[in-house]
Every structure is written in structure tokens, then in C-alpha cells.
């Protein structure tokens, strides 16, 4: 009792309470509810039923692997593309741009404050038949590229576009943690520019690459807007399936099962993510 009393009286614990209790009610509560519903018989709307694993069996035997497959595949492709695209920018921000890096950071972060929908709609205008890209090509060269919108590449483009900052910023931190003296030592030992990159910079900036990759991976895995706005009916991703199970099909238990699977994958990744970072160092560095 005495230990509990002392623990509760810590100022840190007391100040953590408002946010903690709120998230317990608003975050942990719904997740537990979803888990409970996943064991209820199909198409029931109360929790009082006899638990069953019927939903899990039906999800595994039905064709949901297709939407899971698309989500996983697009997540992997997005991650790889983003590593290639953002590494040079991150390198520049960590080592080259100097005082300009702050401005560039702000410029890259600002679009995050604009609704995803609006930004993706901008791509619709660009990719549309007779849209900005197609129209310009027709006007300038008489060429037509009309089939760009509502395709899988368009979805990938949308994901790369929306999640770029989430790969870039961890990379910048990762690269800026590589001490300049190590590179000089390697150069001193006769390493070429490429060897320095491969033997020193890349392995040492690996934590940043890993954190960015995991982050982008979970965000793309659960994404909805990109496939709906830029993909049209091209493919169905897992978040679409979850949404229709809950809304159109009115099958809460099935939607819950799909959510539980997605949440489990996400939680495993978040677990690895958090093991990699010391928050005090990442947030507190100035």
C-alpha cells in the first residue's frame, strides 16, 4: 500500500494522468472492444453472444488475402521508393544545406497541415484525362497520356507523396548522427567516396532508415484515401475491406477480425520501432 501511495504521489505520474486516462478511454477501450467483437457470431451487434472463432475461419478461407496482399505489396514498394527518393534530400539536409536546412524542413512539413484529400485531389487534376500533364503534352507535343489516373502506379504515387516526410525526417536524424570524423578517418585510410558511403555512412545511418521504413510501412498499410481517390476501382486495399465490412455489409464481427489482424501487424512493427528509439534523445536533442 505504502509503495502504491508513494508511486501515485510522483509529480510525473500526476501530470501524466489527464492524457493517460483520456487515451485509456478513447484508445485502449475501442481496441479492446474490437477484439471482443471479433469473437462474436457474424452479423451480431451486441457482445452478449457465445464467443466463436467462426469469423477468423471465414476471413482466412475467403479471398481477403488479395486485399491484404495488395496492401502489403504497395507498402513495400512505397518504402523502397521513398528510401531512394529521400536519401539524397536527407543527406543534403544533414550535411550540406547548413542554415537552409531549417527552411527546407519547414517547407516539407507544411503540406502535412493541409488535408490529405485536397493534396490528393491536386494529383487527380494533374493526372486526369485532359488534366494538367495530359493537357500540356497534347498542347506542346500532340501526345496523349490519358490512362494515368485510377491505376496502381497512381496509388503508389499518392502514397509516396503523402508519406514522404515520414521517411525523410527519421533519415535526416539518422544521417546527422554519423560523425564526420569517422568519414575523415575512412578517407585517411584510403577509402573512395563510394566506399565511404557503403562502409561507413550507410551502415551507421541504418537506424534512421529502419525507423523511417517501419513508420511508412504501417502508415501505408492502413491507408484509405490514396486508393479511393487516385485508384478509383483499380484495386481494393485492406482498409477498404474493413470499412465496407463495418458500413455497407453491417458485419461488425467480420470488420473486427480484419481490424485485429491489421492492428496486430501494426503493433508488432511499432514494438520494433520503439525498441530502436530512445525518445529522450530523439525528442530532446536541440
Amino acid at each position, binding site marked *: 500500500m505504502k509503495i502504491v501511495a508513494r*508511486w501515485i504521489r*510522483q*509529480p*510525473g*505520474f500526476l*501530470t*501524466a*494522468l489527464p*492524457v493517460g486516462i483520456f*487515451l485509456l478511454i*478513447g484508445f485502449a477501450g*475501442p*481496441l479492446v*472492444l*474490437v477484439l471482443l*467483437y471479433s469473437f462474436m457470431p457474424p452479423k451480431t451487434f451486441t*457482445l452478449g453472444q457465445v464467443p466463436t472463432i467462426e469469423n477468423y475461419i471465414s476471413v482466412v478461407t475467403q479471398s481477403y488475402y488479395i486485399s491484404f496482399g495488395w496492401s502489403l505489396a504497395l507498402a513495400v514498394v512505397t518504402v523502397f521508393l521513398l528510401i531512394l527518393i529521400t536519401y*539524397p*534530400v536527407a543527406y*543534403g*539536409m544533414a550535411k550540406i*544545406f547548413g542554415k537552409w536546412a531549417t527552411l527546407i524542413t519547414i517547407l*516539407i512539413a*507544411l*503540406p502535412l*497541415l*493541409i*488535408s*490529405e*484529400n485536397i*493534396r490528393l*485531389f*491536386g*494529383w487527380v*487534376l*494533374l493526372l486526369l484525362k*485532359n*488534366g*494538367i500533364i495530359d*493537357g500540356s503534352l497534347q*498542347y506542346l507535343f500532340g501526345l496523349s497520356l490519358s490512362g494515368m489516373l485510377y491505376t496502381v502506379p497512381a496509388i503508389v504515387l499518392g502514397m509516396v*507523396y503523402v508519406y*514522404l516526410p515520414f521517411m525523410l525526417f527519421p533519415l535526416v536524424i539518422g544521417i546527422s548522427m554519423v560523425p564526420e570524423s569517422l568519414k575523415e578517418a575512412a578517407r585517411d585510410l584510403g577509402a573512395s*567516396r563510394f566506399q565511404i558511403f557503403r562502409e561507413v555512412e550507410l551502415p551507421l545511418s541504418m537506424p534512421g532508415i529502419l525507423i523511417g521504413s517501419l513508420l511508412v510501412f*504501417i502508415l501505408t498499410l*492502413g*491507408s*484509405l484515401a490514396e486508393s479511393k*481517390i487516385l485508384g478509383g476501382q483499380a484495386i481494393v486495399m485492406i482498409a477498404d475491406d*474493413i470499412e465496407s465490412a463495418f458500413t455497407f455489409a453491417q458485419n461488425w464481427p467480420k*470488420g*473486427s477480425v480484419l481490424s485485429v489482424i*491489421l492492428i496486430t501487424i*501494426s503493433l508488432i512493427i511499432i514494438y520494433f*520501432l*520503439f525498441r530502436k528509439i530512445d*525518445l*529522450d534523445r530523439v*525528442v530532446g536533442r*536541440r
Partner: protein
Amino acid sequence: MQSSRQGKVVRALIVVWTGAILIFLYLPMLSVVMASFTKQRYFQFPVKMWDTRWYEKAFESLSVRDLFWTSFSIATLVTVISVVMAFFGALAFARYDWKGRKLYQRLILLPIFFPQAVLGLALLLWFSSLGVTTSWHTAVFSHLIWILPIVTLIMSIQVYSFDPVWEEAAYDLGASRLQVLREITLPILSPGIVSGAIFAFLLSWGNFPLSLFTTGADQTIPEWLYSKMVSGYTPMVPTLGSLTIGGAAGIVILSFVILNFYRKLRGRR
């Protein structure tokens, strides 16, 4: 010599590449703004007729006013609540050393990395199980689940650089607890509080996945835009989109100006 010339080429390439990425990031938004000024019912490029009549219609429309008002109410409430709660949350995150802190730091960040659509649906399930009718009030609650952790994180950055000994020194020089809060703690933490508030407002204003499932009969601007994009396109889409972009840009620029002014004021006296 060889390697330094090589270095210059690599640097130039990186600069060009970064510029290209920035254009890539802003191009879609520019497209939206451009589209909002066309006359045609359906967007075509190159634009043949420029017009501002869709803006006039937007300002006159009552339904647009409703949308705006719903989004604004949600964002304002989310901002106020999250700033107050995150202030304490950030103290627990960054200032106090307490048993359970490392776990708290991780748990509190979970919602940020969580698929928002799934979170929105789980909240919908939660509300209907508890018998709560969804409306813009429940959307405030849902937005907070995601925004509160972000604001806590942003304020924590400022709290990390806060030295509690400043409070002790003020207290030692005769200040009461309240005076310490007013003279020392709040002024030093204010840049963090202001940036937290800006983020809270804009993230709530632009949120779509959480609103989609938890606003019930009410509709926010991002929801309306989405519904019109998927079916029943109207030229009002780029118009409202541009207004939102303009509004966000305005808030950001204004807050930069204020923060800068404040910093100068602090520098001089």
C-alpha cells in the same frame, strides 16, 4: 582535386534533386488553386477561361457556411482541450523523472502511428456500443485521440530545454507559486504551447479518416470534399480546397510573424 570536383557535382545534384522534391510536394496544391479559378464545369488543361465566380458562390452558399462552421468548431475545441491536457502530458513526458515514464512515453505515442481509418471505425463501434449518437461532438473526441499525443510530443521538445532550476531561483527570490508560473514557466514554454496549438488546429481542420466515421450527420470540409470527389464532382471542390490551403498558409505565416516578433521583443526587452 579530383575528389573535390566530384564532391561539387554530387552537391549540385543533391541541391537540384531537393528542389525537384519541393516542386513535387507543392505542385498538387498549386494545381488545386489554379483549378479553382477556371470557368468550366469540368476541369481541362490548358485553362481557356479564368473566373472567380466559384468563390462568390462559395461565400454565398449556406451549406458551405455550415461545413466551415462544423470544421471550425471541432478544430477550436480540439485546440483548447489538447493544449491544456498536453501541457501536463508534456511535463510528464519530458520534465519529471518518474517510475513508468519510459512506458508512458511509448504508450502515449501509439495512436500517432496507428492506422487512422481503423481507429475511426473502432471509435464508431465504441460510440454505438456506449449508446452515444455520433455528431461533431464525438468527432472532437476522436480527433483528440490522435492529436493529443502529437501536441504532447511537440510541447515536450520545448519542455526538454526547460531547466526546473529557473523555477527554484524565482521561488527563492520571493515569487509565489502562481508568480513562478506566470513569470517563468509559461513565458519560457510559450513557443512550444503556441506551436502545439497551431498544429492541433490545422491537423483537426484537415483531418479526414477520423471525421469520416465519427461525425454522424454533421459534415466537415474534408468529408464533403471527399464525397464530391468520389461522386458528384462540382467545381466547388477546388474552390473550397483552395480556401483551406489559403487559410492554413495564412495561419502558418501569421504565427511565424508573431513568433518572430515575440523573439525580437524578448531580445530587446
